[in-house]
């Protein structure tokens, strides 16, 4: 997998991890836990209050049921405290402040528990003593009553009754006024009992008893106050406050993270939007490309058709111009050939014609001589005078001397022989031309390659004569099936090229041989040779090393095509400076029957 595919995946994974992390951090504040913790705190508070109440109630009564209730409350409180300290909803460990507040509260409430136990034990003792004291008070009052003087008996009785109710009230519900009131009543009673010693005696005992009861009661009250004054509520409040502070901090952190999350989400959203826009744009591009494509698709066939038509037209034009070029090349080589042949024909024609005239003129002279002889003969045989005879004979003799008939006759024979020779040469040339062009033959024919080469050599004679020695090494060849006029063109072209490659005197070798399935023709020259770079291109159309205007560059390409079209092959070997060899292989029979392979043929 390439880095290009891994990177986006990694980026997406990182983005999701960041998202999960932030979401988790925002979830770190559990509201239910928080509420339960608060509820626990409230419960502790409530239980503490309940405990206080129970202890207060114990303070005023010693009923066992109340003590049981207090014990139950204490147990509940202990459980709840345990939950705060150690349970699933514990507060310990949340923060040092909370821990400190918790420790403080726990210490206080523990000491409160101890006080409660102590108080309870003491309370029962004091209560019993108090109750004993209270029980003792009426008996003592009765003794005081009995011992009192009768004049004060009513007062004492009334005072004692008040004292008893005040003491009872003091023991049960202490008020700030009834302590001094009891002491005032005791003082009054003591004053009353001063007249009677027994009564005073009884009075002192009563007084001691009352003071004891009051002291017990004061101790009870002070103990209870000590218990109740333990600052559990405040400390619990502090605990709650510190917990709430911790919670608020937690909430603040969570909020912070929420903010981060929102920002992150916003960024992610923006990124997604960007991606979306890009995607959309890509889609739009794709859509457009798609539309263009389908449009192009729709027009493709049309375009293809147009292009094909154009191309076909261009091809036709090219073919036409190629055919035209091949034709002009043929005409050019035909022109050269005609020039050569014209010279070849004009020379014998020149002397033959001239000779004929000379012979005619000579015949005139001879005829004159004959006439003179006739006249001399007639004079001799006729009735002419001797003088006339002598004159006629003399004239005839003089003429005979001038004309020199014997000599003339020999010369005329000579001239006529020359003329014959000339005419024969012309006839041969014309025959070669006919052979060469093959205009009177069908296009595909059985053909003697050796004869074809001979005809081509004859046509090219003008270029070879006196300068180039032609060596022929012909093997007996089977006749091959081909287009003779085309092959003649090939031979003439190669021979002409060979002749042109030779500057000054040189030699051309022509070898023919019969192969297993065809014939092999080799044409070698001692010319300038073909350089390597030129050799690769000589069969290309329009490739020429001749100056502009002196060759179309089509000659060898036409040769190549003709040989290829005949199912043959052509090879060239050359040593620059030494000469070149063209080797042509031609099959015996044509694979395709009789179709003219060269389109130029049709134009020709």
């Amino acid at each position: 997998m390439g880095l290009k595919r891994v990177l986006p995946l990694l980026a997406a994974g990182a983005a999701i991890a960041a998202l999960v992390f932030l979401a988790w951090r925002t979830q770190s504040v559990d509201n239910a836990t928080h509420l339960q913790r608060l509820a626990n705190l409230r419960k502790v508070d409530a239980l503490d209050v309940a405990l206080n109440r129970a202890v207060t109630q114990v303070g005023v009564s010693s009923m066992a049921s109340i003590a049981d209730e207090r014990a139950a409350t204490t147990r509940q409180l202990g459980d709840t405290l345990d939950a705060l300290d150690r349970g699933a909803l514990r507060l310990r460990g949340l923060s040092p402040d909370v821990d400190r507040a918790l420790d403080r509260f726990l210490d206080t409430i523990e000491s409160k528990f101890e006080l409660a136990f102590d108080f309870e034990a003491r309370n029962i003792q004091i209560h019993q003593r108090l109750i004993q004291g209270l029980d003792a008070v009426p008996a003592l009052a009765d003794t005081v009553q009995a011992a009192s003087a009768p004049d004060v008996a009513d007062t004492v009785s009334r005072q004692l009754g008040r004292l008893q109710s005040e003491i009872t009230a003091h023991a049960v519900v202490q008020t700030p006024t009834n302590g001094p009131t009891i002491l005032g009543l005791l003082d009054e009673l003591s004053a009353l009992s001063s007249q009677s010693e027994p009564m005073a005696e009884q009075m002192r005992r009563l007084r001691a008893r009352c003071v004891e009861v009051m002291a017990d009661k004061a101790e009870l009250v002070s103990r209870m106050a000590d218990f109740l004054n333990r600052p559990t509520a405040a400390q619990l409040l502090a605990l709650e406050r510190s917990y709430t502070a911790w919670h608020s901090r937690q909430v603040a952190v969570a909020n912070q993270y929420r903010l981060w999350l929102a920002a992150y989400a916003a960024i992610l959203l923006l990124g997604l939007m960007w991606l979306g826009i890009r995607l959309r744009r890509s889609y739009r591009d794709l859509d457009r490309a798609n539309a263009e494509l389908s449009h192009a698709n729709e027009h493709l066939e049309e375009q293809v058709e147009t292009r094909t038509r154009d191309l076909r037209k261009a091809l036709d034009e090219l073919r036409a111009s190629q055919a035209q070029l091949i034709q002009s090349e043929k005409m050019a080589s035909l022109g050269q050939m005609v020039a050569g042949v014209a010279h070849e024909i004009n020379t014998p024609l020149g002397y033959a014609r001239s000779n004929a005239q000379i012979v005619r003129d000579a015949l005139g002279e001879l005829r004159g001589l004959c006439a003179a002889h006739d006249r001399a003969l007639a004079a001799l045989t006729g009735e002419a005078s001797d003088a006339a005879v002598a004159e006629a004979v003399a004239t005839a003799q003089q003429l005979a001397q001038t004309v020199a008939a014997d000599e003339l006759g020999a010369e005329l024979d000579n001239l006529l022989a020359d003329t014959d020779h000339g005419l024969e040469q012309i006839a041969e040339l014309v025959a070669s031309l006919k052979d060469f062009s093959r205009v009177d033959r069908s296009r595909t024919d059985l053909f003697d390659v050796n004869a074809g080469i001979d005809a081509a050599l004859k046509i090219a004679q003008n270029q070879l004569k006196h300068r180039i020695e032609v060596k022929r090494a012909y093997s007996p060849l089977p006749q091959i099936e081909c287009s003779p006029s085309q092959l003649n063109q090939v031979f003439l072209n190669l021979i002409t090229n060979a002749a042109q490659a030779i500057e000054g005197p040189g030699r051309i070798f022509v070898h023919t041989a019969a192969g297993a399935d065809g014939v092999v023709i080799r044409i070698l020259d001692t010319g300038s040779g073909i350089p390597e770079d030129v050799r690769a291109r000589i069969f290309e159309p329009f490739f020429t090393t001749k100056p502009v205007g002196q060759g179309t560059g089509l000659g060898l390409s036409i040769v190549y095509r003709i040989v290829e079209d005949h199912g043959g092959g052509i090879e060239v070997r050359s040593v620059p400076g030494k000469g070149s060899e063209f080797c042509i292989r031609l099959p015996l029979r044509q694979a395709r029957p009789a179709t003219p392979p060269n389109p130029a043929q049709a134009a020709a």
Partner: protein
Amino acid sequence: MQDTAKARVLFVDDEPRILTTMRMLFRNRYELHFADSGQRALELLKTQPVDVIVSDQRMPGMTGIELLRTARELNPDAMRILLTGYSDLNAIIGSINEGEIFRFVSKPWANEDLTATVERAVKAARVSAAVTTSAAAESGDDPEAAVPPASMPGILVVDDDPQVPPRIRAVLGADCRVFGAASMDEAVSTLEREPIGVVISDTRVEDHPVVSLIGTLKQHRPELVSIILTERADAGSAIDLINQGQIYRFITKPIHDSQCRIAVSSALRQHQRLARDTGLHQRYEVESAPPPPGDAPVSGLLGRIRSLRGLVKRWV
């Protein structure tokens, strides 16, 4: 030079039968020499001066033009005739410019034409040989000496392309007086007015071949020297121009400055020679051209040219 002695004529051809025919045709008339190649002919020329050389063009080893060019250096008085079966244009232009030949004779020839041509050549050779020897004896002045500017004859440029006369003027410089003519009519008018020594002409002016004009000029004003400057060169008209017009040079367009300058200055010298020695005129005698077929304006002009004849004496 003995007039009684037979003229010497050299025939050169690689075909021995041609030489046989020539022997038969010209026996009894001239002293005949034969060579079957250019090299043999040159060897012979070194030992034996001749009056006329008749050479084939296509021969192994040395072409007729090459032979005639060398022969001209060896034996400048000999008249040169080229016998040719078929000649390409370059060969013809070469023979005009380098061989300064008298006639082209094409194969096959008519005996009477050939004998007449050779006869004319012989006559011209003999007359001019006499002239040159006497001239040399008389003054010994160099025929190649520069033409004095005072008597500098004018140059007439006949071309329907109006750019050609100024171009020639620019090439030749201020020393030469160059007249332009865009038609034959104009050309004849200029010839009537001005002393013209050299005519530079295209082969055709306004679609009329100039060969009859030049031929007639040469007939009636033999000291006029013609140069052909053309881009429509063809072998047939070049042959006609030499045979019927005795043109001095044949130049193909585009114009090359130096070639043009050399041709004109040598034409001017030639004009000078011809003006001085009327005996030389026969060397440049033209064939009588066949009358232009129904070409009324041209034949009218030819009549006017004939009337120029009287003026000639005045200029020379």
